[in-house]
């Protein structure tokens, strides 16, 4: 049975005679997964209009905070029941192992529950009267918000972008990635069942053209984008040229991992292999530049090579529940990663330690876990985000050197520090220019704390208290006490 493919507007699936469609193929066996219509101007306008009406005159603005919380909590329970179905479609669409996809659904559930708890807790401020004026600061939702998801963890973005926006009282238009459009449509009806009135949650499918329509729309108040830096710049540009809508960008990373000589080596190995390879390293926060202190470098590198070689066997059919690693998302991604590997072999000055080719004897877009040692400072593989299982390793002598190397990147999304010393961990964590730092682990984002980047990894934060404050704006009210 073909997966649901219609856009979702005003709590209904809508037929659209789309001039353009997108057909998805499995990156494992190239079978057809399904086809979605591309949302054109008419569809986008319709979705935005529905969201605007819901925000201005629908029952939604009259919902109490407690009522909004109940909708979010109910949705959290409901999406859990669709975990298997979502996992299947993600395995088919982008080759994501079902076990991993289910974990992502769990993270989505946790995010909805977390933000349900915030609805009645964003307090404003009041101040003692000064110069005859009583002042109040209150926080109010923006109105119609839009979200553009990356393809690597769609259910996660349903949580990260929409849960806080809805908790704050906004309405939403969500565009999935053209590489993974089905999950939102699987859960669309659950929003209705959870009690969200028509127009509060809308889903449109499409690629760059649809994203452009959203970014440039005159009646969208805020847009949150997760994806590449190139597209992120286009979003910001369109926002500025249209109505100066607020923008949050979660872009790529080329995150460093620094392994000091007093680190627990076993842990550092497993974090930099198993955790690095998670989702076939198609993770914006992947620590793809590893810096290891000279005194333990040989031992560490040998062991990491072994771990990478051993990991090859973990790449299997993503639909199998025991599969840990799947293929790359599609041919485009495969060609891209292979091209980086080629560059690594031919022009980076690095030594190829392990991997470097597709995985033999496996159908689908599988690439070997690959390590390059000592690429040149300006090598493509060292500077640019690969979004695949390719790791750079360099060595360092001193802590100062390590910090310098770690920060020598245009990005600043994630990082990791491996050491047994508490003071070193905190000291180095404070000097790395990145929005998230893991100490002795690759830090998996938690609903409780903010996630986002420094420098060209973007701006704005998702999750944590910051995540809901990002969907609210301050209003100061000054009351003349003399009248």
């Amino acid at each position, binding site marked *: 049975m073909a997966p649901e493919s219609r856009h979702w507007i005003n709590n209904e699936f809508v037929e659209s005679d789309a001039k353009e469609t997108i057909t998805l193929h499995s990156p494992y066996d190239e079978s057809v997964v399904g086809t979605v219509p591309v949302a054109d101007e008419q569809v986008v306008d319709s979705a935005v209009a529905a969201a605007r009406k819901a925000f201005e005159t629908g029952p939604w603005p009259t919902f109490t905070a*407690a009522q909004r919380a109940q909708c979010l909590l109910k949705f959290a329970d409901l999406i859990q029941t669709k975990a298997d179905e979502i996992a299947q479609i993600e395995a088919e669409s982008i080759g994501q192992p079902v076990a991993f996809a289910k974990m992502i659904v769990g993270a989505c559930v946790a995010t909805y529950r977390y933000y349900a708890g*915030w609805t*009645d807790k964003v307090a404003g401020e009041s101040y003692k009267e000064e110069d005859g004026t009583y002042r109040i600061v209150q926080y109010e939702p923006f109105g119609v918000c839009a979200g553009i998801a990356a393809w690597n963890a769609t259910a996660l973005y349903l949580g990260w972008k929409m849960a806080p926006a809805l908790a704050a009282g906004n309405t939403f238009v969500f565009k999935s990635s053209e590489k993974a459009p089905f999950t939102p449509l699987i859960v669309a009806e659950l929003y209705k069942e959870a009690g969200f009135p028509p127009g509060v949650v809308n889903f449109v499918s499409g690629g760059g053209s649809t994203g452009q329509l959203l970014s440039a729309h005159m009646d969208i108040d805020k847009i949150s984008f997760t994806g590449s830096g190139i597209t992120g710049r286009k979003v910001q540009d369109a926002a500025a040229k249209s109505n100066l809508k607020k923008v949050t960008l979660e872009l790529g990373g080329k995150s460093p991992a620094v392994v000091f000589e007093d680190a627990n080596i076993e842990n550092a190995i497993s974090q930099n292999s198993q955790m690095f390879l998670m989702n076939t390293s198609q993770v914006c926060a992947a620590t793809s530049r590893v810096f290891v202190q000279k005194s333990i470098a040989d031992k560490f590198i040998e062991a990491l090579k072994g771990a990478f070689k051993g990991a090859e066997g973990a790449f299997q059919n993503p639909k199998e529940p025991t599969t840990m690693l799947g293929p790359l998302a599609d041919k485009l991604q495969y060609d891209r990663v292979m091209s980086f590997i080629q560059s690594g072999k031919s022009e980076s000055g690095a030594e190829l330690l392990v991997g470097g080719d597709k995985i033999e004897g496996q159908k689908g877009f599988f690439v070997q876990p690959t390590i390059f040692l000592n690429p040149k400072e300006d090598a493509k593989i060292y500077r640019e985000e690969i979004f695949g299982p390719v790791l750079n390793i360099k060595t360092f002598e001193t802590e100062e050197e390590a910090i310098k190397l770690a920060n020598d990147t245009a990005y600043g999304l994630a990082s990791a520090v491996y050491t047994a010393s508490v003071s070193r961990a*905190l000291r180095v964590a*404070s000097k790395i220019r990145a929005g998230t730092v893991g100490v002795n682990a690759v830090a998996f984002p938690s*609903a409780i704390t903010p996630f986002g980047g420094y420098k060209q990894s973007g701006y704005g934060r998702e999750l944590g208290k910051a995540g809901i404050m990002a969907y609210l704006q301050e209003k100061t009210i000054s*009351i003349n*006490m003399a009248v």
Partner: protein
Amino acid sequence: MASFETQLFINNEYVDAKSGEFLTLYNPTDDTLVSDKIHSAGEADIDAAVAAAKAAFKGPWGKMGPTSRAKILFKFADLVRQKAEDLGKLESLAMGSAVSTQTLGSHACADLLTYYAGWADKLLGETSYPGEDGKYKISQREPIGVCSGIGAWNASYLLFGWKVAPALAAGNTFIYKPSEKSPLGLLALGPLIKEAGFPPGVINIVNGAGKTGALLASHMEIRQIGFTGSTATGRRIQEAAAKSNLKRVSLELGGKSPSIIFDDADLETAVTKSAQGVLVNTGQVCAMASRIFVQEGIADQFIGALKGALEGASASGAIGDPMNKNTMVGPVADKAQFDRVMSYIESGKKDGQLVTGGTRKGDKGNFIEPTIFKNTPSDAKIVREEVFGPVATVQTFKTEEEAIEMANDTIFGLSACVFTKNISRALRVTRQIEAGTVAVNDFFFPTVDTGFGGFKQSGYGREGGPEGINDYLQFKTIHIK
């Protein structure tokens, strides 16, 4: 009437009290015996509850992550919501409050559980700007350990929710003593506590009277106690806490709250809200506006209208059998309260002028007519002391300054009402009233997201809102070199 539990609830089990002592309960609607076999906790029982709560704190509950705690609290809230009316009926049976009122109370408890469940994983500490003076500083907020609560009888579920919900969200475990006048409702929570998934020992419910309360207040291993009730008992709790282990104390005590009605107030609103203030829960509300101050120009009009409103309510059948869903107001809680309120009424007749009411209502059960006095001097008993019944006094004032002075002329400071259409007057007067809660153009009703508590001898500490969780947390400062 459905059956009810009578034992103690300790470690997720109903158990007999080792004390061999029992409470006796009468139905105030008709003075019939409800039970004389309600187990009353003695020293060994409290020790057992403390041991259970301690083990749970050091064990599964203490080790549980905040998000998992939140999940259990959310579930508990839903279960209480589902059973709201049944739980409300048990209160009506014990202390006569209308089942409609007490069902609202159960819902308020559920809403508090939902509200505080949402706080569990959001209790942030702070960290300092990195690198300063060679130290990395973290301040953490941590639970205290075994906490306890003593509830009054007028709104058992609300008071339970105010104490237990934030305590558990913060990671503490709890021993709760309902009032001996209303022991049945909270005791019925046992099966819901288990179904929600609380490990044994997290919530323990121990019935008893003053002696049991004293055991909690003086226990060496209970780290905190929250008390709602009379100022006299509150003092004894604080003393016992100081004499034992200096456990932390929060007190929600009495009130003699003022209502100030300016001549630019919407008179209809002022009358309606003032009447409601006298009637709701038969005036057995700590925040009740029982001293009404009305500006001279509209005083006669106001008093006449208030009299009409109250007499109308009394004649309309709003006051009657609390078990009837349409009843708004029941009897007072028991014979002792009846005698107490009637005694105040007699003093009011001596010191002031009766406007309406002043007698028992009917000839069966502990019902009292809503009663208003005027021309009561400021030093009269009826103006100074908390009556805790459907009785209010009305005095007049000329100027705003006079009104504020009269309003503040009390040892209490729990609540206040201000009726005016002028926003800057409302904000200005509100600022000057010495009370922890103020309603403008309304009578005060607590919400889950704002703190409730008193100034002066109405107590200290706040329940509800983000402040409400502070009493259940302690700060730890960490400096890492």
